[in-house]
């Protein structure tokens, strides 16, 4: 494992290009494009204002930079650094901006979700989508980029519109039996659309591409409902994480629940391996102590090393009781992710914030629990193999694979608190982001032990 040096970053805006060749990062109003392997700066672009959001186009030729305060989106080309494009929403304001799957259209969501404007980079045409819904995941593209689903709300009722991305023609428009749709997501096969209701009402609706309601699933009525949803890469399973600390998995044949995965605070099953992160005191070579102490020495003294230990079952995990009278309580399964080979599901129960639960999907059983010293900030699966990278806000990155797990300390000056991880599309390197810096970790091919 090799680590690059730390580079400056703002706003957690660091992205690998889809083809894996470049890495884009932002510092205030500057956009830097580097080579992914050598981290040499290839291009430098300057935008009008502080950049709040960047996105690569699907063919890795363009990058859009959105500045919400100014209501401006600037698009840069990698092929022709002189090329420029500026989209000014003006008084309409800007809340969100994204690429279309073909990489030639930009969808801007104006303030108060008044409309979504589709700007074309090829022609002078502009399209509008009225009444988009202001929800967390209101726009969803299919994996092959053919269709786009948008949630709309008219007269206090939810609707879903399906557009053909080719020519932005409306394909289907139908209403949904929901109170207040919270989000939609396409299945990876592009034929089924999952829509889920607000957390006040547990309801998951499944629609076919042509707008027919395939199934509606409701686990219980009154308590808080769905918190997170994830499709398995083969489209066989839909995992629903809810506020009752359980994950329910539906199968694609009958759309009925096949299992419930519970997240109790005490793990008693003998088949589960619990890895606990423990601190190990740093070894100090007293002969090498100098006065005044060098920076490296100082940082190495103060940075704590840690390693994984296997805890004996039964294990009781650290459990935080949720505050009852606050909205959006830290209860329930808030993070869900399937591995790329469809074999594992990683979850996080917000009541037990220091643990990552890894389930074996083939056996539908809890396989591993990773108990960390601090609360989990995020995890992401390797896009190629069943390898999970976890970050907890410390300067260590944690990797788990079926072969074992490892703690790696990012070498450096210590004050690097990793809050986000992003894998390279090839799975050979990882981008570690903190509030002010980023670092690239290169993994060797036969890295995982």
């Amino acid at each position, binding site marked *: 494992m090799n680590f690059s040096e730390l580079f400056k970053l703002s706003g957690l805006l660091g992205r690998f290009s889809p083809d894996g060749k470049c890495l884009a990062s932002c510092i205030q109003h500057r956009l830097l494009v580097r080579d992914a392997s050598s981290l040499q700066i290839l291009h430098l672009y300057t935008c009008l204002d502080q950049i709040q959001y960047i996105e690569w186009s*699907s*063919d890795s030729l363009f990058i859009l930079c959105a500045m919400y305060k100014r209501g401006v989106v600037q698009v840069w*080309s990698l092929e022709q650094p*002189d*090329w*420029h*494009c*500026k*989209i*000014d*929403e*003006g*008084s*309409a304001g800007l809340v969100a901006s994204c690429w279309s799957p*073909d*990489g*030639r259209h930009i969808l801007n969501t*104006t303030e*108060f*979700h*008044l*409309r979504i404007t589709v*700007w*074309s*980079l*090829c*022609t*002078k*045409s*502009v399209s509008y989508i009225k009444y988009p819904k202001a929800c967390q995941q209101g726009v969803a593209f299919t994996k092959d980029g*053919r*269709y786009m689903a948008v949630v709309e*709300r008219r*007269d*206090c009722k939810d609707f879903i519109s399906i557009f*053909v991305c*080719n*020519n*932005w*023609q409306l*394909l289907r428009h139908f209403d949904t039996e929901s*109170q207040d749709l919270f989000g939609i997501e396409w299945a990876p*096969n*592009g*034929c089924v659309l999952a829509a889920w209701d607000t957390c*006040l009402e547990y309801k998951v609706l499944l629609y*076919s*591409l*042509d707008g027919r309601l395939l199934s509606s699933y409701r686990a219980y009525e*009154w308590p808080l409902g769905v918190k997170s949803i994830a499709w398995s890469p083969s489209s066989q399973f839909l995992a629903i994480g809810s506020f009752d600390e359980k994950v329910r998995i539906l199968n*694609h*044949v009958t759309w009925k629940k096949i299992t419930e995965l519970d997240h109790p605070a005490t793990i008693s099953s003998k088949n589960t391996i619990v890895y606990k992160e423990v601190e190990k005191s740093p070894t100090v070579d007293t002969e090498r102590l100098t006065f005044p102490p060098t920076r490296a020495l100082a940082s190495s003294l103060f940075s704590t090393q840690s390693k994984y230990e296997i805890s004996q079952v039964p294990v009781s995990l650290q459990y935080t009781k949720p505050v009852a009278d606050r909205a959006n309580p830290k209860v329930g399964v808030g993070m869900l992710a399937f591995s790329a080979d469809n074999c594992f599901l990683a979850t996080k129960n917000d009541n037990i914030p220091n643990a990552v639960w890894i389930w074996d999907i083939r056996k539908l059983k809890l396989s591993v629990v990773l108990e960390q010293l601090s609360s989990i900030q995020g995890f992401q699966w390797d896009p190629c193999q069943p390898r999970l990278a976890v970050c907890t806000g410390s300067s260590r990155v944690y990797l788990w694979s079926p072969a074992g797990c490892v703690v790696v300390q990012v070498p450096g000056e210590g004050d690097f608190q990793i809050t986000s991880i992003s894998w390279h599309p090839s799975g050979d390197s990882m981008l570690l982001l903190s509030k002010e810096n980023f670092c690239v970790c290169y993994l060797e091919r036969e890295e995982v032990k």
Partner: protein
Amino acid sequence: MGDWKAITVPLLSSDSKNIFPYTSERKRSPTSMNSQVLRLSLPSPKNMYSFFGAFCTEENLEQSISYIDRELTTMGFPSIYAESKGKELNLVSIINCMNELLVLQHKNLRAQEEVEMQHLKLGSDMDHLQNCYAKLKVQKLQNIISSRATQYNHDMKRKEREYNKLKERLHQLVMNKKDKKLAMEVLNYVGRADGKRGAWRTDKTEARNEEEMYKVLLSDYEQRQKQLLLENAELKKILQQMKKDIVSLLPPQKQKPKERSEDGLVLSDQEEDIGELNKENMWELSCETVREQLTNSIRKQWRMLKNHVEKLDNQVSRGHSGAWNEKDVISREAHELETEKLELEIQQCKEMIKTQQQLLQQQLTCDDDTTLLLQDCYLLEERERLQEEWRLFREQKKNFEKERKSFTEAAIRLGLERKAFEEDRGAWLKHQFLSMTADCKPENVTTSAFLRSSDPDIRLVKSASRQRKPPFVLSPAVSPEPCQISQYITHNSVASEKPAADNMPNLWVESDDKEGTEECTKLWEDSGVGTLCRNLHMEQLP
């Protein structure tokens, strides 16, 4: 009534219980009684009878009586004294008082029981009511929640409508403003990702979109159906396999249940059909009936297997618990006997094997000399055997030689005799002829001539008779060859032989001992000497 002074009055404990607490407070009773009363203020039913003497003793009899009287009178009973001031006790009134007190006691007990019952009832009612109350509370809260939710939704909708109105207004304003400014500045327009030109939105494109969409959906469904078909085929295969395994596991007795019930018979037929059907349709159809039949048959087989296993379990458990089922006991005994027998056999076999091994060992572990010796022994044995056989053979050969010799001698003799006979015959014939022609010869001469002269017939007769006596071996020398003899006669002018003849020369060949001669010929032929003789004949009679 008599003098009642000496009577001791038994106290009733409950009354004593009731009374004493009261009396301890009153302080009217005499001090001795007070102390006694105080002592007795915590009585228990067990100690009741021990206190019988404690309240009233010989000494304080008067006082206790007067105390009792006071208590009774305060409770409304009549006094127990016969007169108001006298010391004589009124027995009748005492008895009555006692009776009254007993009745009261009974009543109190019953009342207590009733109170306890009621208490229990009330307790259970309370629990029940509490539960109901809790449920009701829950329902009530739920109702409250739902009503609040509906109210909340209603309010939200109202706010949302207002919000929408504001948005519309804002939108209008924004749109108006927007018309003036150019929103997008771009250096030059970029080509499409796929290189083609953008298409106009027409109905045709709409239709094409629909088509595309359905194609996508259909291909997805087809893929899924393929997967499901494969899965089904695999599962069917597995079920078939399972069925076969179950059928093989079941003991052959399963035929019985099949034959017993009619359903079973039908099923067996069905199952055969199923077997055929499944082989054909497995990969193609997922016929409802076929599937049902398969699953039904598997269920039946599985049930039978289960029953069988349960039976076995029961048998085992019965065996363990030692239940006296005759059948089982006998079978076990027999089993044990058999095992013993087998063990014995095994022992014997083992011993045999051991001895054999030892012998083999001996053989193998012998040194070369002994092995050679042994080998020689074997060879000697064989040689001796062979020598024996040779000896026998030679003996037999000798015998055969002897026989042959004797045969040849006999043949030679026979030949000679034949010659003589022929000579005789010739002489006889000649004589006859001569005699016939002469016609006056003495009979003696004839007879002697007959006898002595070479009268072939007589000689034949004589020789025959003579030669009749010796073993038959010779006589058949002539008989089988009548034609040859005649040949000899005709061919040989010199009748040097004296063939054996009978009284009836013409018939002697055929009559008498034909069987014997046949047998003899057989013997001759068998021994192979006959031919030898014949050859000799041929040789000797040129």
